């Protein structure tokens, strides 16, 4: 599987700096379908398009604009955006470590992998192992495009995982949803506990993924028998790469989620 780079920079803790790349950890999707052009069966690629010039716009010609009044934009170049918090745009500085047990999963947003860049392998391996043994997560802030992310860096299966966290103010209050009063007869409470205990097993997420694919695989198997495949024209290659930054990658994954059958 080709792993797409989203960002590159360094991750640091105290005086140690490790060059790294940020790559996807989640491939939002399903039995993967491609969008095709029904006329020539060429695959389709999602690109930014200029309606004025009717052209595909390469990344170098794209600029971010903040709309201050209808159709009036304040343009911000990448350099200007990086100047807002220059200490955080190319560096993920671990400010402190926390016990993983203390981290409420309510804060977790989206995970990515961090992979070492050339020359960083040794310090990377050391950090992976030291975090695994101590069961700690490193907390850091970093800025990508126009957003600042609070992130947790953890060690998992020999790889560093960077998970963006929700800022506490983004979490809506949880109180008020539970019934405040209500006495449950002891017998009823024990009954429900017993029923739960009987059904407690090991976490095995694979079986749910399999169920989800079953229907689609059935459909495809049936179709493969009935119908021939179509072929893309030669030279229908995809140009360029996908989203250039985390924001775009996030939006892409959200969009994919919505597109799921």
């Amino acid at each position, binding site marked *: *599987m080709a*792993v797409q780079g989203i960002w590159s920079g360094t991750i640091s803790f*105290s005086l*140690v700096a490790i060059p790294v790349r940020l790559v996807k*950890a989640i491939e939002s999707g399903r039995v993967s*379908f*491609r*969008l*095709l052009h*029904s006329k020539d069966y*060429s695959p389709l690629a999602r690109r930014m398009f*200029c309606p004025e*010039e009717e052209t*595909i716009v390469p990344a170098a010609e794209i*600029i971010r604009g*903040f709309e201050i009044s209808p159709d009036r934009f304040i*343009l911000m170049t990448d350099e*200007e955006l990086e*100047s807002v918090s*220059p200490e955080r745009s*190319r*560096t993920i500085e671990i400010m*402190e*470590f926390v*016990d993983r*047990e203390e981290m409420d*999963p*309510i804060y977790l947003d989206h*995970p990515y992998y961090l992979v070492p860049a050339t*020359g960083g*392998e*040794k310090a*990377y*391996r050391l950090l992976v192992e*030291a975090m695994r043994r101590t069961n700690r997560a490193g*907390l850091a802030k970093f800025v990508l495009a*126009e*957003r600042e992310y609070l992130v947790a860096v953890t060690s998992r*299966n020999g790889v560093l995982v960077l998970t963006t966290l929700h*800022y506490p103010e983004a979490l*809506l209050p*949880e109180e008020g*949803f*539970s*019934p405040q*009063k*209500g006495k*449950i007869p002891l017998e009823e*409470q024990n009954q429900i*506990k017993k*029923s*739960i205990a009987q059904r*407690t*097993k090991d*976490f095995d997420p694979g079986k749910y993924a399999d169920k989800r694919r079953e229907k689609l695989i059935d459909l*495809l198997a049936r179709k493969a028998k009935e119908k021939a495949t*179509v*072929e*893309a024209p030669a030279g*229908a290659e995809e140009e360029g790469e996908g989203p250039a930054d985390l924001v775009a990658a996030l939006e892409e994954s959200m969009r994919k989620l919505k597109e799921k059958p």
Partner: protein
Amino acid sequence: MAGATIWKGDLHFGDTDVPVKLRAAVREERLQFHLLHRRDGARLRQQMICAYEKKPVPGEEQAKGFEVEEGKYLLVEPAELEQTAPESSRMIEVHEFVKSGEIDPLFFDRLYYLEPDLADIKGRGFIALAKALKELDVAGICTWAMRKRSYFGALQAHGKTLRLHTLRYADEVIPAESLGLQEAPFSEKELKIGIELIEKLTAPFEPGKFQNEHQEKLKEMIAKKARGEKISILPPRRLKPTEPDQLLQVLEASLKKAA
């Protein structure tokens, strides 16, 4: 302020049914930027481009294909896909329970709060379930269909409340092995100091102390530009990577600094 009600249904396992409402738990506010064309300031749109003709393709000329081998596709009609969509139901089926700590955090996706529905008289089932999940320290693994999609999730108690986290499907998680990372040896001494350093830098988890300062600074910069003031460009701070043969010294210096 509480989030909007998103869905209503019954939590179901064994002989137990608990009517609940799903509420949004997260509300993110951020400055929204648009992507513009540098040359003419036109607002850009995302379009599906035919890789062969290099032209945008309208929705009615788009088809779905499953790639059987490179460049060869099995066409699938929208109506056929529709048939594989889950039947809508009003039930969150709890299939089994697992120890809370067993769920790999990588699987957690979206979070909802559950609220007892009025159909649950005085919320008895809700209270009993929350209490049992908490006492046993387990999460209910459940599936349900909502908005034509199948969801897989974890039901957990937090205090007296219930949370429902949707889980990512196992085949959506890119396996770490596929990254092809190489081993790189380090010494026992380096590891020992690394561990000591991490322990020295450990603090209690208090996410409240981290503010999004950047958002305010960004607003200021936009206001400055709107007034026509010049923005000073600051180069991003780039750290010099620690050389592999310097790692021990740097770790020792870090430890000294942390002491």
